[in-house]
């Protein structure tokens, strides 16, 4: 990064100032924590630079690729970044996330990866219908497809084959767990679960970005353990852990998000928890450690 003169002790890196970022900045203000907001679209990094602009940065960049490289650049200059580049890259890849969760001994849906669309049908049918096909990278439920029949699978794989990016040709397929129209989102900050919500949708995907309704979810011992363990498994200081209940009510961990959006979560939780303030507390703690 073009470091310039050292200013605020905490950097807030984001190209888009959403309600979440405004809440975070307000929480930092309330705690008297000095910060500098930087538009990540203006950032540049130079190999070998070792002058940290801040000791700590909160990475709130909305783009996965830009977020990862911002973290890499800052870390190379000696800045501690929340979340780290490693965590952002791991969480940004659904297959790598699944592997990390499984390696940590956490329950995950049956999942398969095929390296070409041609190999995809066999991978899908080894899992069995209904199956969910997801892009390796992406969020908000984009291009996530529920497939209940071979004819649909073949059509989806043909569409995947027609996509321009080589990464898009990798087929990630996962067993459909539960009804698919609801899931649980738990937020973990600094190793502690600050709360969980149910997300319910009129369609089968339950992303808030797609209009899912949210309501508080009881934080059971199992849920708390799984959410905390999932965040730990991917090395994320701040994590949005998505879970589903199977037909027997057992929870499985679906994925972990490193760029947590929390407006829907906050709306559901009301004054039970203040996510922005929890983030500000994490920043405060890390600044003094």
């Amino acid at each position, binding site marked *: 990064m073009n470091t310039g003169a050292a200013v605020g002790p905490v950097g807030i890196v*984001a*190209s*888009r*100032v*959403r309600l979440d970022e*405004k809440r975070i900045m307000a929480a930092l203000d309330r705690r008297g924590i000095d910060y500098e*907001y930087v*538009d990540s679209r203006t950032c540049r990094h130079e190999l070998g630079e070792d002058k940290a602009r801040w000791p700590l940065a909160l990475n709130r960049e*909305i*783009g*996965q*690729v830009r977020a990862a490289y911002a973290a890499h650049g800052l870390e190379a200059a000696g800045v501690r970044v929340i979340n780290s580049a490693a965590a952002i890259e791991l969480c*940004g890849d659904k297959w790598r996330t699944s592997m990390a969760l499984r390696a940590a001994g956490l329950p995950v849906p049956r999942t398969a990866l095929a390296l070409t669309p041609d190999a995809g049908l066999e991978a899908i049918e080894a899992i069995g219908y209904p199956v969910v096909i997801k892009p390796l*990278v*992406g*969020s*908000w439920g*984009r291009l996530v497809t529920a497939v209940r029949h071979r004819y649909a699978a073949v059509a989806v794989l043909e569409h995947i084959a027609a996509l321009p990016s080589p990464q898009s040709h990798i087929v990630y397929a996962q067993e459909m767990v539960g009804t698919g129209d609801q899931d649980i989102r738990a937020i973990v900050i600094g190793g502690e679960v600050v709360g969980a919500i149910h997300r319910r949708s009129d369609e089968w995907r339950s992303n808030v*970005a797609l209009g899912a309704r949210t309501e508080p979810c009881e934080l059971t011992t199992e849920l708390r353990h799984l959410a905390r363990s999932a965040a730990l498994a991917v090395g994320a200081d701040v994590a*949005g852990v998505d879970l589903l209940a199977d037909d027997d009510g057992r929870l499985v961990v679906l994925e972990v*998000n*490193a*760029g*947590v*959006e929390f407006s829907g979560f906050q709306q559901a939780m009301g004054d039970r928890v203040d996510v922005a303030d929890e983030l500000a507390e994490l920043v405060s703690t890390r600044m003094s450690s």
Partner: protein
Amino acid sequence: MNPEERDVMPQCPECSADVKVDDGSQVNEIVQCAECGSELEVVSTAPVGLKAAPDVEEDWGE
């Protein structure tokens, strides 16, 4: 900021409608045009300037 600068409502670059922007707005905040629904990015605050917000990219999200 000079209050008079806030009194002049910025126009939507897409449909030219006046766009209400909160006093507490800041650069890079996203606002929506009530008239045409376009997402707009605040590029300055004194006076308030708006431009069309960037389109959602493939890797955007959580």
